[in-house]
C-alpha cells in the first residue's frame, strides 16, 4: 500500500481527491478557498488597526488556518514518508524551452536554480518576492485564487469565477510567453 502511495500520483487521482476535499469542507459548513488565509494572517499581525479591510474577527477563520497548517504537514509527509526516488518526468518540449531560457531541468520537484537557498541569486529573490506580491494582490483583488475560483466557483457554475480563471490564464500566458524571454 505504502509503495503504491509513494509513486507519483496520476492526474485523475489528484482531481478526484481535490474535489473530495472541496465537498468535505462544504459538509463541514465551510468553503474551500486558500488565499483568504493571507488576509487572515495580515489581520493577526495587526493590520486591522490601520486598514479597515483587515478589521474583522480572525477567529472565524481559524479553521482555514488549521487547514493551512495541515497543508504544510502534508508537504512534509510527502517529502519524507512518501518520498520516491524516481526522477521527475517533465515534457521534453518544456525541458528544451526552459533550456533556451537558461533554466536547467534538474529532475527535482522544483528548479534548484530558483528555489535552493544555498544557490539562490539576488535577482531570483527579487523575482520570487515580486511574483508573490502579484499573487497576494491579485487573489484579493479578484476575491479568490485557484481553489476559490477555479475549483469552488466553477463547480458552482459562477460566471464571475470563469472571468477570474480566464484572467489567471491570460496573466500566466503573458508571463510565460512575453515576459520570460525578457526576465531570464
Amino acid at each position, binding site marked *: 500500500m505504502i509503495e503504491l502511495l509513494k509513486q507519483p500520483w496520476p492526474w485523475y487521482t489528484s482531481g478526484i*481527491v481535490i474535489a473530495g476535499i472541496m465537498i468535505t469542507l462544504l459538509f463541514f459548513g465551510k468553503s474551500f478557498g486558500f488565499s483568504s488565509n493571507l488576509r487572515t494572517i495580515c489581520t493577526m499581525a495587526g493590520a486591522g488597526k490601520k486598514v479597515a479591510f483587515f478589521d474583522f474577527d480572525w477567529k472565524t477563520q*481559524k479553521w482555514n488556518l488549521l487547514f493551512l497548517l495541515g497543508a504544510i504537514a*502534508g508537504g512534509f*509527509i510527502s517529502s519524507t514518508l512518501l518520498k520516491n526516488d524516481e526522477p521527475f518526468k517533465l515534457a521534453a518540449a518544456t525541458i528544451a524551452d526552459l533550456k533556451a531560457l537558461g533554466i536547467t531541468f534538474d529532475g527535482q520537484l522544483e528548479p534548484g536554480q530558483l528555489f535552493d537557498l544555498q544557490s539562490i541569486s539576488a535577482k531570483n529573490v527579487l523575482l520570487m518576492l515580486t511574483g508573490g506580491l502579484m*499573487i497576494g494582490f491579485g487573489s484579493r483583488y479578484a*476575491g479568490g485564487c485557484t481553489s476559490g475560483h477555479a475549483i469552488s466557483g466553477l463547480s458552482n457554475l459562477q460566471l464571475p*469565477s470563469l472571468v477570474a480563471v480566464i484572467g489567471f490564464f491570460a*496573466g500566466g500566458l503573458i*508571463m510565460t510567453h512575453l515576459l520570460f524571454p525578457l526576465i531570464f
Partner: protein
Amino acid sequence: MKGLRFILAGILFGIVMAKSEAVSWYRIQEMFRFQSFHMYGIIGTAVVLGALAVFLIKRFQLRDIQGMPINLPAKDKQWTKYAMGGLIFGLGWALTGACPGPMFVNIGYGYVAMVIVVAGALLGTYLYGLIRHKLPH
C-alpha cells in the same frame, strides 16, 4: 478537538498536491506552454466532479454535519475586479509556479526559499487592503 478534521483535510490536500506534482514550478510551465495534459487533467477532473457534487447538493437540498442547509453564496457581479485581479494573479502564478496553497505545501516539503514568495504574497495582500478604495472594482 473540533479543529482536527480541518488539519486532516489540510494534510490530505498537502499530500495530493505534492504527490501529483501540482506544486511544481515545472508543471506550471508545462501547462502554460500547452506541452502536457497533466495540470488540465487535475483541474478538469476536480471541476467536473465538483460541479456534479454541487448539483446533487442543490437538487437534494443536502445539509452539513451541523444540520444547516449547504448554501453556496453567489459571487457578486463586479467584472473589473475579476479580470484585473485575475490577470495580476496569473502573472505571479507563472513566475513563481505557485498558488497560495502550494507555496505553503512547498515549505513543508523542504523548499524553505518559498518563504520569500509567501512574504511577497502577504505584502501584496496588505497592499491591496491599503489601496482597494482607489481601485476599479
